[in-house]
């Protein structure tokens, strides 16, 4: 069902454009474009992860910002313990190495997703939406109250994590690191959604009863998808903390969950690259609108309403219908 990878020419063009972007942006005098593109890549990873449960699995999670925030806090907390040189819990030493912090963020958010998913998936429908929201809110308030880690002011990460002698403070270098990670991520995601596991997931969305009749344990598959998706959001959160050199409870605020969902629906639910497109549309829209008017949220609200009510499938589907081709 995934045709995106069957259009290698288009994919190659996009990839070349992404690789060339910082160089062109610098040459054209729009150096800030590189930062914008970095944000797009990071949010794209998070939105695509959310889409695995939302679009493929049909589970409307309203709490995925929690994993995004956890990823950020893993980086922030490890950095704080590294800079103060006092081990976490007395035995885990802090770190400023990207190769340590990223896997740690992925693992921790995976564990959290396993716990939250295991409980939330006992319910369905509106209860599922609300219980995922509730867990995210719990974590939000927990981090707001943790004075050791900055409370509601958040944690400043003075220096971006180090990676193999690269100058990570350089915007271009960091962009290319994010681009490499994003490429890797999308290859893995592509493998997942086109595997037997991905097919079962789609099957579960369409009819849980049918899958049960074949003898497939729905709960286990859904939980697995939830965990993978949480890990992806954790990865994105860790990258975002490095990018902003800052992490705060705002990363797991419920409006952030809403924004991630907006990205997914803007780009197209249940498509591999849709969320990346959605992240790009949302991020660019946000910065363009914000530069025009301070009332940009009003415009964003109307755009969102329009997309939900009239496009039925986001930007990708709208384009497909406009140009009369089936995406």
């Amino acid at each position, binding site marked *: 069902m995934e045709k995106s990878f069957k259009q290698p020419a288009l994919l190659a063009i996009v990839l070349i454009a992404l690789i060339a972007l910082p160089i062109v942006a610098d040459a054209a005098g729009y150096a800030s474009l590189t930062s914008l593109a970095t944000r797009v890549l990071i949010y794209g990873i998070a939105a695509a992860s959310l889409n695995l449960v939302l679009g493929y699995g049909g589970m409307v999670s309203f709490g995925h910002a929690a994993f995004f925030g956890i990823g950020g806090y893993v980086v922030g907390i490890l950095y704080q313990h590294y800079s103060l040189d006092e081990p976490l819990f007395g035995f885990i030493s802090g770190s400023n190495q990207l190769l340590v912090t990223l896997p740690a963020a992925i693992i921790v958010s995976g564990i959290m997703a396993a716990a939250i998913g295991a409980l939330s998936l006992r319910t369905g429908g509106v*209860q599922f939406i*609300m219980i995922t929201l509730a867990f995210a809110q*719990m974590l939000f308030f927990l981090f707001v109250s943790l004075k050791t880690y900055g409370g509601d002011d958040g944690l400043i990460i003075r220096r971006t994590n180090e990676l193999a002698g690269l100058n990570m403070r350089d915007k271009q270098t960091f962009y290319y690191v994010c681009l490499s990670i994003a490429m890797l991520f999308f290859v893995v995601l592509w493998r997942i959604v086109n595997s037997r596991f991905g097919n079962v997931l789609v099957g579960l969305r369409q009819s849980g009863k049918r899958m049960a009749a074949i003898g497939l344990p729905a709960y286990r598959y859904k939980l697995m998808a939830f965990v993978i998706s949480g890990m992806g959001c954790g990865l994105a959160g860790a990258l975002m903390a490095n990018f902003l050199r800052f992490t705060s409870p705002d990363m797991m605020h*419920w409006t952030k969950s809403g924004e991630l969902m907006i990205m997914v629906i803007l780009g197209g639910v249940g498509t591999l690259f849709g969320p990346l497109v959605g992240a790009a549309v949302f991020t660019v829209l946000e910065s363009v609108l914000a530069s025009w008017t301070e009332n940009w949220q009003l415009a964003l609200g109307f755009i969102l309403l329009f997309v939900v009510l009239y496009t039925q499938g986001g930007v990708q589907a709208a384009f497909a219908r406009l140009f009369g081709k089936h995406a």
Partner: protein
Amino acid sequence: MTLFLEQLLNGVQFGIMLFLLAAGLTLIFGIMGVINLAHGSIYMIGAYAGTWVAARTGSFWLGIPAALAAAAFAGLAIEFLVVRRLYGRDHLDQVLATFGLILIFNQAVTMIFGRQPLFVAIPSLLDGSVELLPGLVYPVYRLAIIAVGLLVAVGLYLLINRTRIGMLVRAGSTNREMVRALGVDVRLLYTLVFGLGALLAGLAGFMAGPILAVQVGMGEQILITTFVVVVIGGVGSIRGAFFASLILGVVDTGLRAYLPGLLRHVMVGPDADALGAGISSMGIYLLMAIVLLIRPKGLFIRNS
């Protein structure tokens, strides 16, 4: 002991406020199957309209019709322009469309009223306190809120259990198609229910004015708490919403009042206060998680 009773009353008062919001929310969800995140915005609109009129005219009482009218109008407009198109759509679309409404309303209210919170004074009739028990002095205004909330609860009970509209509402929440097949104008019924929900939200918003600051974003905070109420009580059940509101109001108030003190026995003051505040904020979500794990459909829905 009196302090405990006072906190209990505070909890009941908070619970009653939640009930006014939760009743509308659960009716709208139970009958139309729509998750309306913009319910908190209607609460905010009621608060702003009422408080603004009250401040302009100097009369608290004129604020009430203003709040109700503004909230009902906003509710009907939302139903007519947006929610009407969302019946039968999946929850994701509903969540996102009404999330868009939140952005619109918050920004619009900021543009009209500015970022400064509005204030309204308690009218002289409801100002002051009464001594309920020896040593237990309680503000009249909060008692009035409790009274209004109980009146609304009784009114809703009668409306739903004793009238024809109520019968249709009950039937509609069980089997929508059947009601439509019987020749009932379901669309009009939906609009009425939505308007009623909006009216109650506006009332809650205006009554909250003198206690809380009337400001942008006031709706979202209480909205999520209200959703917790609806889910704990059981989606679509007014009775569930009533009891869950009271339970939640009391639990939340109790945790906020007593937890920091308890924590101060084991850790230093400021840390205890911060952690206490954090855990109390988490308390209701924890409560909801526990309830859902035991009864996935909520406390007051018979498991089928």
